[in-house]
C-alpha cells in the first residue's frame, strides 16, 4: 500500500471526504470514549437519583417511626394516668357514696322514728276505742 503523502503530513480524509488532522482511528476511539463517558455520567446520575429517593424514603420512615414511638409513649403514659384518674374518680365516687350512705342512714332513723310514732298512735286509737 502506498503511503499517503497526506497521511504523512498528518492530514487524513474521512468517509465524507472532509479533511482531518486526527487519525480516523483515534477519532473513532475518541468519540467512542465520549459516548461511553456520557453513558457513564447518565448511569451515575440515575444511581444518584435512586439513592436519593431511597434516603428520602428511609428518612420518612424514620420520622414515622419516631412519631409512632412518641405516640406509643404517650399512649403508655395515658394508660398509666387513666389508671390514676380512675383511681381518683373512684375515690370521688366513693366519697359521694359515703355521703349518700350517711344520708340514707339518716332517712332510716327518721323512718324508724316515724314508724314508732305511728305504732304509738295506733295503740292510742285502739285503746281509745276500747275504753269508749
Amino acid at each position, binding site marked *: 500500500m502506498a503511503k499517503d503523502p497526506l497521511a504523512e503530513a498528518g492530514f487524513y480524509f474521512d468517509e465524507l471526504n472532509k479533511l482531518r488532522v486526527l487519525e480516523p482511528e483515534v477519532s473513532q476511539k475518541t468519540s467512542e470514549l465520549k459516548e461511553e463517558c456520557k453513558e457513564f455520567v447518565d448511569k451515575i446520575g440515575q444511581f444518584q437519583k435512586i439513592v436519593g429517593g431511597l434516603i428520602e424514603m428511609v428518612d420518612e420512615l424514620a420520622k414515622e417511626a419516631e412519631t409512632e414511638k412518641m405516640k406509643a409513649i404517650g399512649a403508655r403514659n395515658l394508660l398509666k394516668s387513666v389508671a390514676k384518674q380512675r383511681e381518683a374518680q373512684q375515690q370521688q365516687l366513693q*366519697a*359521694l357514696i359515703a355521703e349518700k350512705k*350517711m344520708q340514707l*342512714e*339518716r332517712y332510716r*332513723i327518721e323512718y324508724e322514728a316515724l314508724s314508732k*310514732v305511728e305504732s*304509738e298512735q295506733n295503740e292510742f286509737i285502739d285503746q281509745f276505742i276500747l275504753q269508749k
Partner: protein
Amino acid sequence: MRLKTSLPKEPKHKELVSCVGWTTADELYSCSEDHQILKWTLLTNETSLVVRLPEDIYPVDLHWFPKTVGAKKQTQAEIYALTSTDGKFHLVSKMGRIEKSVEAHKGAVLAGRWNYDGTALITAGEDGQIKIWSKSGMLRSTLVSQGSPVYSVAWGPDSDRILYSSGRQLIIKPLQPNAKVIQWKAHDGLVLKVDWNSVNDLILSGGEDCKYKVWDSFGRLLHSSSSQDYPVTSLSWAPDGEVFAVGSFNTLRLCDKTGWSYALEKPNTGSVFSLAWSADGTQLAGACGNGHVIFAHVVEQHWEWKNFVITLTKRRTMQVRNVLNDAVDVLEFRDRVIKASLAFDHLVVATSLQCYVYNSRNWNTPLIFDLKEGTISLILQAEKHFLLVDGSGLYTYSYEGRLISTLKFPGMRADILNAQTASLSNDTIAIRDKTDEKVIFLFDAMTGRPIGEGKPLTHKLEVLEIALDQCGPSTERKIALIDKNRDLYLTSVRHLGREPKICKIGSMVHSMAWNDTANILCGIQDDQFTVWYYPSVVFTDKELLPKTIYTKDGSEFARAPHILSYVGAKVTLRQRDGSLVYSSVPIYPALLHEYSASARWEDALRLCRFAKDQHLWACLAGMAMANRDLNTAEMAYAAIKELPRVQYINFIKEQPSKDSSLAHMLMFSGHVQEAEATLLQAGLIYQAIQVNIDLFNWNRALELAVKHKTHVDTVLAYREKFLQKFGRKETNKRFLQYSEGVEVDWEKIQAKIEMELSKEREKAANTTVRSSVASRH
C-alpha cells in the same frame, strides 16, 4: 339541702385564684396570681377586668370593708383590703385604684380582716406577727409576735377578741392587754383556716390533718369531722350561722352548724383556697387552684308544718306538697329566696326585694309587699303576726301585710339575732341583749313599746336561749329561759308592781320549745326527753311541778338532740348526726289546757277520770288552784293523794269571808306577803297577825299588832307557848320589852279571837246580802 354549683367551661384567670369577696349578693371580685382582679356580675353572667395589678403584687387575701355597722349604713366609699406576698397590704377602691399601700410584714401577708364595725383592720404575716391598723392604714399596735407564720385570723363577735392559728394550735386573744388568753391544740397538722361566726359564737377550724372542727368560744370541741381525703384549705360560716362551707382539693362541702354534712360536691376545681358567702347567705363563691371561680347556692331546703312539706327546688321556685292528698303547688318568685318560715297556717317568704305571705288554704294568691332593706336575716312567726329582722331593725307585720310595729332600743344589734335570742308571741316580743347577756328586753308586739316602764328582765346569769309561750291571755304570758348553767327558768312577762319571781323548773336543759296550741313546754333535760305539761304550776304549787313532768327515755335518741318544733302532739328533733326523729306527746294535757282556759271543770274532771293519769290529775290540781276553783282542786289533789293540800283547801273553804279565803289561797301558793296585804286591805288585822304567827314570823306579827294597837297579848301568848314547847328562853329584845307591860290571859285572848271571827262572819254576811240585794235591783 345541697349545693348547686356552676363552673364555667374555661377558667377566666390564667393562674390560681387566691381570694374572692362579695360586694352585693350579685357581684363578686376575684384576685389571681396572674395579677388580674375580675368582677363577676351574676345577673348578666358577665366577667369584666377591673384592674391589672403591677407585676410584683401577688394577692393573697381580700376583704371588703363592712357595709353596715349596727343599724347605720356606711357612707364611706367602698374599699377593700388586699394583702400580697411582698409584705404589703393595699387599700383598693371599687374601681380598682390603689388608694394606699402599707408596708406591713416581712414576708407575705397571709390574712387581712376588717372588724365588724370597720374601725380596725388586722393583718397576719408569715413573720408570725399580727398587727392592728386603723381604718386609714395607720399602725395601731403589734398584737402578737410568734415564731411561726400565722395562716389565718378571725375577729370575735364583738370585735373585742381575735382568733388566730399558731402551728397546730388555736389561740383566742382579747385586745385588752392583760385579759386572759385561751390557747389549745386543735389539729394534728397545721391549722390552715379559721372562722368565727358572730351570730352563734362558734369557731371553725380546718387543717392539714384533713379535718374540720367546730368549737365553742371557750375552746370546747363540739364536732370533729372524720379525716377527709385532702387537707382542708378553706372554710366559711354562712352569715346567719346555720350552715358553713368547707373547701379542699376538688371538694366542696356544706355542713350544718353542729358539724354534720348536708352535701358533698366534687367539682373540678383544684384546691379551693378561699370561700366567701354573700351577705344574704344565699350565694357561695370559691377561689379555685386551677384558675376557676366556682359559684354555688343552696337548694332543696325543706320546711315542714302539719301536712305541708315545702321544698326550695330552684333559686326562685318552691314546691308545696300537701301530704294528705298529694296535691302539689309550685310557687314562683321574682327574686332569689333568702329566708322562709312555715308555721301557724302561713308561709312567709322573704326574697331580696319583697315579702310573700301565703295562707295554707290558698297557695295561688300570696300577699306581697316590698321590703325596705334587702337582707332579711330572721323570720319569727306567731299565730296572729310575724316578725321580720333585717340589718337595721325589727318589724312586726300582720298576716294581712300590715306593718304593726317597729322595734328600736339602744344598743340594738339586729344583725346578730337568731331564733334562740329572740322570741315572738301574739302580744309580746322578747330579745336577749347582746352587750349584757343577762338582760332580756320585753316589748309589746302591738305598739313596739317596752313592757313594764322599760325596765328589762334581768336574770342572775347569762341567758343562752329564750322562748315565749304562745297561748292564753297576754296577762298570763310566760317566758322560759335557759342560762349558762343550762338551768331552765320560768317567769311571767307582765306583772303589776313587784318584780316577778324567776322560778327554776329544770336543770341540764339543752334545748326547749313551747307547744303551738297549749302552754306545754318540752325540752331535752340531761339525756331525757321531758315535757312540762303545766309549767306555770310552779307559781301556784311548786311541789306539784315534778308530778306534772312527763319524761321519755332518751336512749332512743342519740346524744343531745335539738328540738326543732313542737306542733300539736308531735315533737320534731334533730340528732347530732343530722337525722330527724319524731316523738309523740299524749294529747290529753292539751285538752286539759283547753278545758281549763274555758273553765269547763266538769269536762276536765271527766277527762282525768277517763285517762287515769297521775300527771294529768296533778296538772288539773294546779290549774284549778290557779283559777281558784276549789272543788275541782280538792278532787284533783285527792286523786294524787296529797292529803295535806286537800285539808288546806277544806280549811280555805271554811273561811268566813271571801277576803280570808283569797288570802289563804295566796298562802297556799306561798305568796305570804300578798296574802298579808290582802288581809290588811280588807281590814282583817287579827287574821293578818294570825297568819304571821302560824308561820312563826314573830317579829312581823308583833310589828303588826303594835302598829294597829291590837292583839299584842295574842302574839305574846302564842310566842310564850311556842318557847315553852321548845324549852327555850325569850331572847328577842322587842318581845322582852313588850311582855313587861302586857299580861297574858288565854281566856281573854280566846274570847277576843272569837269576837274577831264573828265580826268577820257578820261582815261577810252583810256583803253577801248587799250584793244579792244589788243583784236583785
